[in-house]
């Protein structure tokens, strides 16, 4: 019985962590799906968002969950501006340039954070940090449960945006047919920037959900982004549903392989999956055929 309980709690933990992974992957897959580039600054942006949560909490005494409503629009605006005024003009319409510009941005952000906060690892202290909810025989961490629910909500909102609104439809249109979109009066540069902004906004939300139970240092984002890449490949490049399902799968795999192979080998499962997907289903679970 104890064995089953441990298994179930590892499963639940995996699902809850996976939902936040999914949120990080959502931003990555959205930008990839529309701009057809891997945003190398994704990890650094997440780190910056986590430091923003840290500063909001320690300097301005703003609760991380409250900070969602401040940081999400802020990071949307930042993402929008960076794409519109830095990445776009600097890349001259060449995809490989965009790649390099985002790589350069990640180096700048990371080192700016290193200069500002040094390489110390920090965390914030919230009263509900260790609170748990009892479900049957399981004790589930409240902040992780909140993160789980919030991630689903964000994925749902993002899906509604893409499916129902004109802006969302324009994003999907630009993703596949830039010229046709421009000739329909869609401002392609604006849509690119909106997409980039949405990607950054996802990270801001992820950061707010992570900080109550997690720590931050200037390189923390990379760990998440490596996992997010795997999720995007597993779920299918550019697929929202794929990012969500992929995130949950990866979260569970990491948690269970941690349980059975030991904590330090927990990530082996993730990379095994990565290799298997590349070998047998390179388009991912929900990816479009090439």
């Amino acid at each position, binding site marked *: 019985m104890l064995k089953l309980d441990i298994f179930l709690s590892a499963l639940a933990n995996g699902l809850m962590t996976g939902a936040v992974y999914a949120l990080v992957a959502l931003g990555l897959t959205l930008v990839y799906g529309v701009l057809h580039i891997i945003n190398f600054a994704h990890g650094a942006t997440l780190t910056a968002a986590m430091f923003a949560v840290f500063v909001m909490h320690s300097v301005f005494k703003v609760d991380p969950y409250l900070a969602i409503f401040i940081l999400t629009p802020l990071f949307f605006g930042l993402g929008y501006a960076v794409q519109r005024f830095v990445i776009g003009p600097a890349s001259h319409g060449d995809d490989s340039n965009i790649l390099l510009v985002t790589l350069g941005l990640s180096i700048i952000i990371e080192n700016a954070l290193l200069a500002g906060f040094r390489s110390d690892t920090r965390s914030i202290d919230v009263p509900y940090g260790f609170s748990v909810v009892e479900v049957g025989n399981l004790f589930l961490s409240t902040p992780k449960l909140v993160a789980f629910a919030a991630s689903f909500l964000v994925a749902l909102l993002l899906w509604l945006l893409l499916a129902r609104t*004109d802006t969302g*439809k*324009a994003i*999907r*249109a630009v*993703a*596949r*047919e830039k*010229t*046709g*979109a*421009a*000739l*329909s*009066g*869609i*401002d392609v540069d604006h849509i690119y920037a909106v997409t980039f902004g949405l990607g950054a906004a996802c990270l801001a939300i992820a950061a707010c959900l992570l900080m109550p139970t997690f720590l931050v240092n200037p390189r923390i984002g990379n760990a998440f982004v490596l996992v997010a890449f795997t999720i995007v490949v597993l779920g299918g490049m550019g697929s929202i549903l794929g990012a969500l399902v992929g995130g949950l799968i990866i979260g569970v795999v990491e948690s269970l392989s941690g349980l059975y192979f030991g904590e330090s080998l927990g990530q082996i499962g993730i990379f095994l999956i990565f290799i298997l997907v590349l070998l047998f289903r390179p388009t991912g679970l929900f990816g*479009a055929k090439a």
Partner: protein
Amino acid sequence: MLEVRDLVAGYGGVPILRGVSLDVKAGEIVAVLGANGVGKTTLNRAVSGLIRPHSGSVIFEGAPVTGHSPTRIVAAGLIHVPEGRKIFPNMSVRENLELGSYRRARANRAANLERAFSIFPRLKERSGQFAGTLSGGEQQMLAIGRGLMAEPKLVIMDEPSLGLSPLLVEEMFGLIARIAGEGLAVMLVEQNVVQSLELASRAYVLENGAVVMSGPADELKRDPRLMKTYLGM
């Protein structure tokens, strides 16, 4: 309505269009004819703002739009239905049409959707289907329908007959005649000389990036040079 003056345009500094001038007046169908590679598509792209012309001017309804973004040109009511359709394959037929009114005539979307469906009943049957799964003819109808959703004042039709069977070409030209019959100005850019001249009131013939012949369609039809070059007579 549309005045193109001494337009020079091309890619990467190399001019393809070498000083083209033409006019389209309100309510008229004007054909721009020429073989592959004479600059027809470059002309369209320069007029609709996809590329910035090197020199010359484009005037629409008396106001210069030279070098404006496609967004502004669409907003002004000059709609380009592109060669190769450029529909959104990953979206439903209905969503494709809806996006036609993204910049213009958004308030009349529902009414215009009904109108597009009445002109192209086949699109209504397929409204929930992904546009990428349509046949070539249906995709062309969708591209035209999407253009009409913006309540254009002038439509540039870029090779609407491309890749269609003779029967479908006939149908497509019939539909264009019907749309133009409602008072819309059409610049019909085509390789299909015979049928275009049947439809148009005036025509320009492009060769090597310049206008080599122009005049009323009836006269051009009888022009021995045109007959020799394009009809092999």
